[in-house]
C-alpha cells in the first residue's frame, strides 16, 4: 500500500493478560474489580526477603498461545530482570523474559478484503505487569492490584504495511487468545494493550526508516487511527526535509493524534540479567504434546472448513467464527437443523440482534442451539412457515420453551391441507365480491397481493403461502 509514494513498515507488540486466577509469581488474586491494593501479597508489593514462584498455569497458557501461533517453544527459557525505577514498579525491576523467551519464530494468517496475509511472530515472552499510578495534581496514589499480573507479550516482525492490516492482525490475535481461553480479551479492562512501531520509507527503498513507537493503545480501532495519523505525520516530516526522531509517542483518542512521550535520549538502560531467584523454565516434549492435543480448532481453520464443508459464504464463515462459543453454537444448531445456510442466517440476523440488544453473550442465549436447530427443521419440513417461525422465535427467546411446545400452545402449525385453504380462500373471495370483480375485469391492477394478504390474515398466518398462491391463482382465473 502506498501513501504519497511512501510505504509504511509496521510492527506490533501486544500485551495479552493471561487469565490465571492468581498472579505470575504469587498467590494474589487477579480479579478486576477488587478494592485498591486488595489484590496484593508481600511478594507482589516487593516486601524485603520475598521471592517469586512461577505460576504454572501462566506457562501452560503461554505455551498454548505459542503453539497456536506456530511458534517454536523453547525447552529452556529464562526469566530476566528488567531494572528501572518507577513508583508503581514495586521491586525496582520487572521480571520478564529477555534473550531466551518461551516462544519464537511463529506466524499468524488472516484474511483482509478476501486476501490472505501472513505476519511473522518474532517472539512471545512472559512477564509481570506493573501497578497503576493515579495522579491527582500534586500527589499520586498507587494501586498495586495489577502488579504481578501475568502477561504474554507477542511481538511481530516488521511485516505489516497498512493501518487496516495492523488492526486486523490485532483482532486476529484477540480472537485466537479468546479461542484458547487464555485471555478474556476485555480491552476496556486492559486485558490487551498494543504498542505499534511505525516507520515510513519511499516505495522500493531497501532500508527501513526511523521507527516511532506508539505505546499502550487499547483498542484496534485506535490502532488503525493512531497508525494512520503517524504515517501521515512522518511523511510530512520527511517531505519537509526533517528527520524522524526515534521516540515513544502516545495516542490521544480525543484529539485524534499522537504526541511525544519520551525521546531516545531518555531511554532507559534496563541492565537485564537472569533473575537468580527463579530457575529456568523447562518445557518437556510431553508437555508440548499434551497442550497441543488440547488446542481447539482455530478461527481461520474453522472458517475455511465452514466454507468448504458447509458451503457458507466467506462473510458468514468469518462472522460465525469470530468467537469460539458462537462457532460452537452454529455447529450445534446446524447439526440439528441439517440446514447450514438457514442456521447461519437465523443466528446472524435474529439471534445476534436479540443478543446484542440484550447485551448478552452467546453462552447466555435463552434459546439453546438444539432448540434453534429444531425450529429450523420445523420450517424445512413445512410444519411452520418462515413467517410463523419469527413468532415462534420470539416466543422461544422470551420463554426459553422448545419450538414444538410454542407451536402447539399457540396453535401455529401451518395449514397445508389444500381443502382447508380452499375453504378460507372461498370465504375471503365471497367477502370481497366487488374487489374480485375489479380484479377480473382488470379495472384495477395488482390486486393479487391483496387477496394473498387477506387469506394469510384470515388464517392467522398459518396457511402455507405456496398453496395459498396456487389456489388463489386458480380461483381468480
Amino acid at each position, binding site marked *: 500500500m502506498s501513501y504519497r509514494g511512501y510505504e509504511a513498515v509496521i510492527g506490533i507488540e501486544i500485551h495479552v493478560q493471561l487469565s490465571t486466577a492468581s498472579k505470575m509469581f504469587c498467590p494474589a488474586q487477579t480479579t478486576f474489580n477488587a478494592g485498591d491494593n486488595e489484590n496484593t501479597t508481600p511478594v507482589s508489593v516487593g516486601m524485603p526477603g520475598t521471592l517469586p*514462584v512461577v505460576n504454572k498455569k501462566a506457562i501452560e497458557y503461554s505455551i498454548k498461545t505459542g503453539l497456536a501461533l506456530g511458534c517454536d517453544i523453547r525447552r529452556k527459557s529464562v526469566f530476566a530482570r528488567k531494572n528501572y*525505577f518507577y513508583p508503581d514498579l514495586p521491586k*525496582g525491576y520487572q521480571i520478564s523474559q529477555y534473550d531466551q523467551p518461551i516462544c519464537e519464530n511463529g506466524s499468524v494468517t488472516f484474511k483482509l478484503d478476501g486476501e490472505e496475509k501472513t505476519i511473522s511472530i518474532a517472539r512471545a515472552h512472559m512477564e509481570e505487569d506493573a501497578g497503576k499510578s493515579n495522579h491527582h495534581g500534586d500527589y499520586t496514589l*498507587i494501586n498495586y492490584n495489577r502488579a504481578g499480573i501475568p502477561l504474554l507479550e507477542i511481538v511481530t516482525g516488521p511485516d505489516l504495511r497498512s493501518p487496516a492490516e495492523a488492526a486486523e492482525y490485532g483482532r486476529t490475535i484477540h480472537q485466537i487468545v479468546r479461542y484458547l481461553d487464555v485471555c478474556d480479551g476485555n480491552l476496556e479492562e486492559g486485558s490487551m494493550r498494543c504498542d505499534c512501531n511505525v516507520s515510513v520509507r519511499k516505495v522500493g527503498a531497501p532500508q527501513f526508516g526511523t521507527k516511532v513507537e506508539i505505546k499502550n493503545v487499547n483498542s484496534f480501532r485506535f490502532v488503525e487511527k493512531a497508525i494512520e495519523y503517524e504515517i501521515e505525520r512522518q511523511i510530512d516530516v520527511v517531505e519537509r526535509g526533517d528527520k524522524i526522531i526515534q521516540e515513544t509517542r502516545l495516542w490521544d483518542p480525543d484529539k485524534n493524534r499522537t504526541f511525544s512521550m519520551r525521546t531516545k535520549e531518555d531511554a532507559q538502560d534496563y541492565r537485564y540479567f537472569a533473575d537468580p*531467584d527463579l530457575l529456568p523454565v523447562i518445557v518437556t516434549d510431553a508437555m508440548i504434546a499434551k497442550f497441543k492435543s488440547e488446542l481447539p480448532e482455530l478461527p481461520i481453520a474453522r472458517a475455511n472448513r465452514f466454507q468448504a464443508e458447509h458451503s457458507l459464504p466467506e462473510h458468514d464463515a468469518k462472522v460465525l467464527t469470530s468467537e469460539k462459543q458462537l462457532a460452537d453454537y452454529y455447529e450445534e444448531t446446524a447439526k440439528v437443523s441439517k440446514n447450514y445456510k438457514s442456521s447461519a442466517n437465523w443466528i446472524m440476523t435474529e439471534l445476534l440482534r436479540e443478543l446484542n440488544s440484550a447485551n448478552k453473550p452467546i453462552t447466555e442465549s435463552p434459546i439453546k442451539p438444539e432448540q434453534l436447530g429444531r425450529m429450523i427443521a420445523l420450517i424445512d419440513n413445512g410444519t411452520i412457515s418462515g413467517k410463523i417461525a419469527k413468532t415462534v422465535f420470539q416466543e422461544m427467546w422470551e420463554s426459553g420453551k422448545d419450538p414444538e411446545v410454542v407451536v402447539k400452545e399457540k396453535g401455529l402449525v401451518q395449514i397445508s391441507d389444500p381443502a382447508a385453504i380452499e375453504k378460507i380462500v372461498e370465504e375471503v373471495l365471497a367477502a370481497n365480491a366487488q374487489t374480485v370483480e375489479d380484479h377480473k375485469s382488470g379495472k384495477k391492477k395488482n390486486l393479487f397481493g391483496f387477496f394473498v394478504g387477506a387469506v394469510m390474515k384470515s388464517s392467522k398466518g398459518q396457511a402455507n403461502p405456496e398453496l395459498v398462491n396456487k389456489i388463489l391463482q386458480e380461483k381468480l382465473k
Partner: protein
Amino acid sequence: MDLTFASISEIADAVKNKSVSAKEVAQHFQTRIETLDRKLNSFTSINPNSLSDAAEIDARIAKGEDVGPMAGVPFGIKEMLCTKGIRTTAGSKILENFIPPYDATVVARLKKAGVVVLGKLNQDEFAMGSSNETSFHGSVKNPWNLECVPGGSSGGSAAAQAARLVAGTIGTDTGGSIRQPASFCGIVGVKPTYGRVSRYGIIAYASSLDQAGPMVSSVKDAALTLEVISGFDENDSTTTQKQVPAWSKSLKSDIKGLKIGIKKENMAGSLHPDVQKTVEKSIETLKQMGAEIVEVSVPLTEMAVPVYYLVAASEASSNLARYDGVKYGYRADFKNLSAIELDEFYGKTRGEGFGAEVKRRIMLGTYCLSSGYYDAYYNKAGQVRRLITNQYLEAFKKCDVILSPVTTAPAFKLGERIDDPLEMYLNDIFTTSTNLAGLPGMSVPFGLSQDGLPIGIQLTACHFEEQKMLDVAFALESASSVKGKHPHVV
C-alpha cells in the same frame, strides 16, 4: 545444669522433661543480654514477647504435645531474616522502622522446632562488610577482645553466640559472612550447600550466593540446627527437593580413610603466622586420626574475590532497588518542598537511607550490568564462576573435604581497615569461592593466636556432602585448643 554453656539438645531435653521451664531459660538468657550486651552491641531489637512465647512452649509441653527438637531453646536471629512482628532492618537506616508481617522460612522452621526468638542481631548493612562496622546500629565488639571486630557481616550473631547471650544464632553467608565471624569469635558456623536452606524472608543481598546457616557453639548444635532449617520450600524455587539427612544423629569423629584436600594455592599467600600454625596443626591432627592428606588445585580461586564482587554487587544493585521510599521504610523529608521530581525523590531518599559501603556496591553493580560493560564484567564473571565450580568438582574427585584457612589473620582492630575497602574485600579471599560454586563450607574453632584470639579452620565439601564436612569438623573439635575456653566478657 549450667544453662549458659549447655548445648542446644541439653536445653531442649531439660525443657521437655520439665527440669527447667522454657520461660526460665528465656529469662536466664534475657538477663545475660541485658547485662552483657552493653559491651558488645550485638542485639538490635529484643523480642518483647519472648517470655510469653516461652510460656506457650511450657503450656504445650504440659498438655503433652510434641514441641519439637529445640523445645524452649533461645535463639538470636540475624537482622537479614524477617521476623513477624519484630523489627528487621538489615542493619540499614532505610529499613529503620520495618516490622515484617511474616517470618522468614528459616525462622518459621526454628519456631516450629520449639525455638524461642529472643531478638535480632546486629550485622553489616545489608550484609555488606567483613567487620560489622557498616551497620546503622553501630559496630559490634569481639567478646574475646573488645577492641577487635567480631567479623562480618554476621558479627552480631558471632559475638552474641561467643558470649553465650543465646544458645544458638542464625547468620547469613554471601561471601563468607558466617564463616569469617565464626572464626574471629571462636564458634562453629556453617554455610550449607546453595539450595539447602530457603531464602524466603531473608533480605536479599546477592540472591545467587546468599545462604543462611547456624552459628552455634558446637558441631553437634550446628548439625541439629541445620537439620531444622533445611529442606525444600515452595516459596523458594531455588531450594532443593533432596531429603534432609539426619546429620546430628550420623555425626562421627572417626575419619579414618577420609581424604582431606589441601589447596596448594592457599598456602602460597602471606598468612599470619598464628593462622599458618593453626592450619598446619589441624592437618597434622587429622593425619594422626587416620585421614589421608592429598594436594588439590583450584587455581581460579585467585579470581574469586573480583568475581565475587562483580556478581554480588550486580545482584545487590538490583535487589536493593526496592528500597525507594515509596512503599515502606525510610523516606527523605520533603515537607518544605512544593514539588519534587521523581529522580530527586529517589536520590534524596536513597542517598540518606543507605550507608557508604552499600552505595559503593550499588554503584559498582549498576556499572557492571550497564550496556557496554555487561559482557566485560557481569557476563565474564559468570563464565569464570562456572570454571571455578568445574575446578572444584574436579578437586572433589580426589578428596572428600577441602581444608583451608578461613582468613589470613585473626580478628583485626576496629577501625583498622574501614577506610580501605580493597583491603577489606581481600579478607574474603578464602571464603568467596565456596559461595560462587554453591558448595557447603564451615568454620570450626581450632586454635588461639598468641594474643588469645580464636582461629577457625575452614572445611569445604562437594554439593550436598555436608555430612562429611561435619564429621571432619567434629573430629577437629575434639582436638581443638579453643574447646572449653570462653571469651573474658563471659
